[in-house]
């Protein structure tokens, strides 16, 4: 079974803090994604990566950056957290080609005070 794990289930940070959200997948997937999920807005893509050291902006990249130094790990970084970044963050991975089914982690609920 594919397993996607996220470093924290719940996180509380203060405005201006630098925040790291870590995601690890164990099935050698090429593609990895970071989404945020807000009520009524569904999943919105922040960044994605198709390979190591490769990153592409999604629909809402502002205020975020990412790092993919190893194939299994994809990190989301909030350089200076703001209250409007309070959200549920979901990481996903997928194989290239095929149905492109994405396998999701359990999510990290981030609260920025």
């Amino acid at each position: 079974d594919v397993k996607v794990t996220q470093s924290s289930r719940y996180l509380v940070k203060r405005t201006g803090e630098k925040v790291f959200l870590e995601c690890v997948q164990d099935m050698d997937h090429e593609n990895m994604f970071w989404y945020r999920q807000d009520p009524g807005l569904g999943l919105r893509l922040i960044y994605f990566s198709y390979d190591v050291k490769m990153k592409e902006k999604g629909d809402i990249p502002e205020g975020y950056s990412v790092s993919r130094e190893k194939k299994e790990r994809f990190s989301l970084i909030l350089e200076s957290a703001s209250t409007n970044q309070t959200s549920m963050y979901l990481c996903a991975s997928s194989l290239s080609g095929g149905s492109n089914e994405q396998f999701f982690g359990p999510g990290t609920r981030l609260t920025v005070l």
Partner: protein
Amino acid sequence: GESVGLHLPTLSVQEGDNSIINCAYSNSASDYFIWYKQESGKGPQFIIDIRSNMDKRQGQRVTVLLNKTVKHLSLQIAATQPGDSAVYFCAEILVNRGFKTIFGAGTRLFVKA
């Protein structure tokens, strides 16, 4: 613009009845669609997919129907069970845009015992 939307934000059904969750999409160039189920406290999980050259696909207790003429997708769940209570998302995959996935806002399904 692109959008994948759902007709109803919530759906309440009696246990044992059939459920129908609807989804409208706007991009006629989409290549296939995926339905995801998200239970409370978990990330979305793949249920079933359908390619754009099909109009129906069946799985275990689930059927997805695709009507490209009106850009409409539906998920039918037979003999709905309490364990089916969740939020259901449709997602649209655009192969010619780097396999971009667009998620709908989600429909919450309540199953009454």
